[in-house]
C-alpha cells in the first residue's frame, strides 16, 4: 500500500510539472491591465467580414470615416468633414491628416480606396446592406480627399459608413499577399483604432495593448485582457473573485445576479440608455391575429409594467412604440395603446368573440380564440415574458399556446411566417430605423411576414424604397411618419420594453460609461485605480 501511495504521489508531481503553464490569464495579471470577459475569442479581426469576428473588438481596432453618436447624430471621425452634392449622389470626404495605422503606415485616400475596392469585390457577402449596392469604387481626389459616387441618392450612406462592418479601414500592410481580397484572410489586423491586438490564445484570452500612435485620446490603461468565459454564472464567479474587473453588455450575466450586485455595496451597477426594442410581432395574415380588433385587444391586455418589474427587475424601460422617440424620424407623438383590460374585452366583444362556456375562453361560430406565441426555448427571459402574456391574455378570454423551440426552428418560423405571435426585436442603433425598416421588404426576420396581411403592405414597401433614396429632408420625414404611423395604427407589433446594456464593476474602476451603440465599449476611458 505504501508503495502504491509513493507511485501515486510521483504521478501527481509529474503531472503538475508537465501541465501547461500560461504566462497570462489566470496567474495574476500585470498592473495597468484592465480585465474583461467575453463568450468567445474575438476572432481574426477582419474588418470586412462577419462571424467569428466579434463586433465590439472590431470597433476597438478599426475606425469609420464618420461615427454614430447619441440620438442618431453622425459626427466626423477619420473624415474631418464631408460635402454632399445637390443631387445626393456624390460625397466628398476630407480625411484627417494626423492619422496613421498602428504600424505607422499613413491613413490616406489610397488606403480608403483599397479598402472600398476589397469590400466591393465581395459585394455578394454584403448583399444585406443597401450601401454596398449603391456605391461605386472610391475616387482619389488628392492624398487626403476621396469621393464616393452613388447610383441613387441613398440618404443613409453616412449611417451605413458608421457601421462596425463592412467598411472600416485596414492598413494596406495588413492585406493578404498577391493582391488577394481580405475575404481570403489577413496578413495582420492593423487598424487606426485605440487598441492593437497583441496576442490570442484560443479558448483562453485575447490581449490588446494601447495604440501608442493613436490620433485621439489614448486609452488610460496600457493593456486590455479579454478572457474567454462562455457561461454567465462562471462570469459572475470570476467577477466576485477578482479574476475580471468588469461585466458589460446585454446577457453577460443573469438579471437575478445583476439584481444581487445592485444591492451589494461592494459593487457599482449601471444601466445604459435604451438600445433596441423588445417586441412581439403579430401575424396579420394568419389565425385570429389576422383581425385588427384582436391585435388591438392584445395591446390593451398586456401589462408591460408588471413584466418590467417582474421579469426585468426594473432594468428596462416600457416601450409603447416600435422605436423610441429619441431616434431620428421617430418622434411622431403616436398614441400609446395602454394597459386597459376592459377596453380589450370590449374590442373582442364587438368583434363577436364572446365568453360562452365555463372555460373562460372566448369563441365565435364554434371556434375558440386561441393564438400561438413562439419563443426561443433556451431564452429564460422569453419564457418568463411568454408566461406572463399567456396569463394576462387569459384574463380577457384569449387562450395562448406557448411554443418554445431552439434557434433554427424559431428563426425559420419568423422567416416563413409560421406564427400568430412571435418575439422579434428591432436591431437598435445604428441600424434603427433605416436598416431595420429597409429589411421589411423581403422575408428575413418576422417583419415581412407579420405585415403581409395588411391591406396597404405594397404601399408601405414602396414608401420604404422611396424614403431610402429621398433627397428632401421634409419629404423623408413625411414618408417615415406615414410608414411608422400605419404600422402603429394597424397594431403589427406589441412593443414591450427598450432593452438596455448592463455594467458592473468594483470601486477601483473609474469612468465606466456606455457607447452610442451596443457594439462599442468605451474601454479607452476606463481607468483602474
Amino acid at each position: 500500500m505504501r508503495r502504491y501511495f509513493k507511485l501515486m504521489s510521483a504521478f501527481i508531481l509529474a503531472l503538475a510539472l508537465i501541465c501547461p503553464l500560461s504566462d497570462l490569464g489566470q496567474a495574476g495579471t500585470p498592473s495597468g491591465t484592465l480585465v474583461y470577459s467575453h463568450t468567445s475569442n474575438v476572432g481574426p479581426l477582419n474588418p470586412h467580414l462577419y462571424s467569428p469576428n466579434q463586433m465590439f473588438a472590431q470597433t476597438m481596432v478599426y475606425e469609420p470615416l464618420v461615427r454614430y453618436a447619441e440620438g442618431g447624430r453622425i459626427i466626423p471621425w477619420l473624415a474631418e468633414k464631408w460635402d454632399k452634392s445637390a443631387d445626393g449622389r456624390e460625397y466628398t470626404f476630407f480625411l484627417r491628416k494626423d492619422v496613421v495605422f498602428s504600424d505607422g503606415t499613413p491613413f490616406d485616400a489610397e488606403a480608403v480606396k483599397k479598402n472600398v475596392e476589397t469590400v466591393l469585390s465581395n459585394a455578394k457577402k454584403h448583399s444585406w446592406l443597401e450601401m454596398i449596392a449603391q456605391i461605386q469604387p472610391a475616387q482619389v481626389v488628392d492624398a487626403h480627399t476621396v469621393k464616393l459616387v452613388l447610383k441613387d441618392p441613398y440618404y443613409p450612406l453616412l449611417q451605413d459608413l458608421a457601421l462596425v462592418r463592412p467598411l472600416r479601414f485596414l492598413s494596406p500592410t495588413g492585406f493578404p499577399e498577391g493582391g488577394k481580397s481580405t475575404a481570403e484572410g489577413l496578413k495582420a489586423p492593423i487598424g487606426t483604432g485605440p487598441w492593437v491586438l497583441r496576442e490570442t490564445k484560443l479558448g483562453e484570452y485575447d490581449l490588446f495593448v494601447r495604440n501608442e500612435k493613436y490620433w485621439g485620446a489614448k486609452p488610460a490603461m496600457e493593456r486590455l485582457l479579454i478572457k474567454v468565459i462562455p457561461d454567465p454564472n462562471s462570469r459572475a464567479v470570476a467577477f466576485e473573485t477578482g479574476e475580471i474587473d468588469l461585466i458589460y453588455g446585454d446577457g453577460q450575466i443573469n438579471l437575478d445576479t445583476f439584481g444581487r450586485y445592485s444591492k451589494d455595496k461592494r459593487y457599482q451597477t449601471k444601466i445604459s440608455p435604451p438600445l433596441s426594442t423588445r417586441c412581439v410581432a403579430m401575424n396579420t395574415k394568419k389565425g385570429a391575429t389576422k383581425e385588427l380588433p384582436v391585435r388591438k385587444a392584445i395591446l390593451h391586455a398586456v401589462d408591460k409594467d408588471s413584466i418590467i418589474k417582474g421579469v426585468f427587475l426594473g432594468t428596462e424601460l416600457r416601450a409603447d412604440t416600435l422605436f423610441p422617440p429619441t431616434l431620428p424620424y421617430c418622434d411622431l407623438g403616436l398614441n400609446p395603446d395602454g394597459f386597459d383590460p376592459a377596453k380589450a374585452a370590449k374590442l373582442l366583444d364587438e368583434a363577436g368573440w364572446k365568453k360562452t362556456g365555463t372555460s373562460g375562453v372566448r369563441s365565435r361560430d364554434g371556434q375558440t380564440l386561441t393564438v400561438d406565441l413562439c419563443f426561443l426555448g433556451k431564452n429564460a427571459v422569453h419564457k418568463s415574458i411568454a408566461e406572463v402574456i399567456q396569463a394576462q391574455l387569459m384574463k380577457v378570454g384569449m387562450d395562448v399556446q406557448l411554443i418554445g423551440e431552439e434557434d433554427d426552428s424559431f428563426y425559420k418560423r419568423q422567416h416563413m411566417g409560421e406564427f400568430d405571435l412571435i418575439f422579434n426585436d428591432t436591431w437598435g442603433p445604428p441600424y434603427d430605423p433605416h436598416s431595420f425598416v429597409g429589411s421589411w421588404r423581403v422575408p428575413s426576420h418576422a417583419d415581412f411576414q407579420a405585415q403581409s396581411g395588411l391591406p396597404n403592405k405594397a404601399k408601405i414597401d414602396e414608401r420604404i424604397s422611396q424614403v431610402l433614396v429621398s433627397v428632401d429632408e421634409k419629404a423623408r420625414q413625411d414618408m417615415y411618419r406615414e410608414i411608422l404611423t400605419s404600422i402603429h395604427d394597424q397594431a403589427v407589433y406589441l412593443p414591450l420594453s427598450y432593452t438596455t446594456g448592463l455594467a458592473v464593476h468594483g470601486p477601483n474602476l473609474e469612468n465606466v460609461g456606455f457607447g452610442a451603440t451596443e457594439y462599442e465599449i468605451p474601454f479607452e476611458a476606463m481607468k483602474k485605480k
Partner: protein
Amino acid sequence: MIRFILNRLLLLIPLLLVVSVLVFLLLRLGENDPAMSYLRLSRIPPSEQALAEVREQLGLNRPLVVQYFDWLGRALRMDFGLSYVTGAPVLDRLLYYLPNTLYLAGVSMLITLGLGLPLGVWSALRKDRWPDHFSRGLAFIGVSTPSFWLGFMLVFLFSIKLGWLPPLGMGSPLHVIMPAFSLSLMSLCINTRLIRTSMLEQMNARSVLYARIRGVLEKWVIGRHVLRNSLIPVVTAIGMHMGELLGGAVVVENVFAWPGVGRYAVSAIYNRDFPVMQCFLLMMTALFVVSNLLVDVLCAWLDPRLRYGKGAEL
C-alpha cells in the same frame, strides 16, 4: 496477441465509417440549418438571397450524397474541412484543444484510481462497520451528484468563500483541482463500489482460504491474493471511465472555462458547425475504442487465464 490487436484496430475502420454515416445523416435530417445559424452569428438578416449565398459558400446546396462523399474523400486524406463559423481547419483546432482535455481527464483518472482504490479496500476490510457505511454513503451521494452542480458548489466554497483555489481557466496546477474533482466524482464512486464488491468476492475465494490455511500472514493474503485479483475488473472499468470522463468534460469544461475540446464541441453544437461536430464525434469514437483496446491488452497481460486461454484462441 499481435493478431488480436491488429484485428481490433482493423475493426475500427468499418466502425468509424458507420459512425460517420450516422452522424452525417443525423445532423442533416433534423431542423438544423447552418446557413441560418451563420447569419444569426453574423447579425445579418436572413433574407432568401443571404441564405442562398451562405448555402452556396458552405456547399450546403449540393445533394446529401455528394456532400458526404466529398467529405469522406477529404477525411481519408486527414482533411476534415473548415469550420462553418471560424473558417479554420477543424482538425487543427480539435488537436489544439485535445491535450487540455486529455490533461483534465488524466488527472481525473488519477483521482478516480488514487482515491477509489484505498476507499474500496478500506470499505471491504471494514465491511458493515462505519468505514464501510461512510464509503457506501459517499458513493451513493457521489453517483447522484451532477458534475456541473458540484462544480459550482466547489467554486462557491473554495474560491468565493475561502479564496484558496482559482475559480476558472487553466494555468497553474491549482487550476486543475476543482474541475478534475467535479469530473471524477462519479467514476470515483463507481470505482469504490466496484473494488469493494470485487474484494469481498475474492475474500471468499478458495485460494484465499488455502492461503490462510497455509498460515500465510494476513497482510500478504490481502496484498498478494485478494487485492491483486480484485484489480482485474477495475482495469476493465478504466475503459468505461475514460468514456465517462471525456463525455463529462463537455459539461465541466463549460463551468470552469477550461479551454478543452468539449467546450469547443458545445459551441459547435449551438452554432450548427457540422464539420466540427463530425470530426469531434469520430475523434471521440476512436479514442474510446482505442482506450478500450489498451485496457483489453492490459487485462490479458495481467491475467494469465486470459492470456493462455481466451487470448490464445484469438
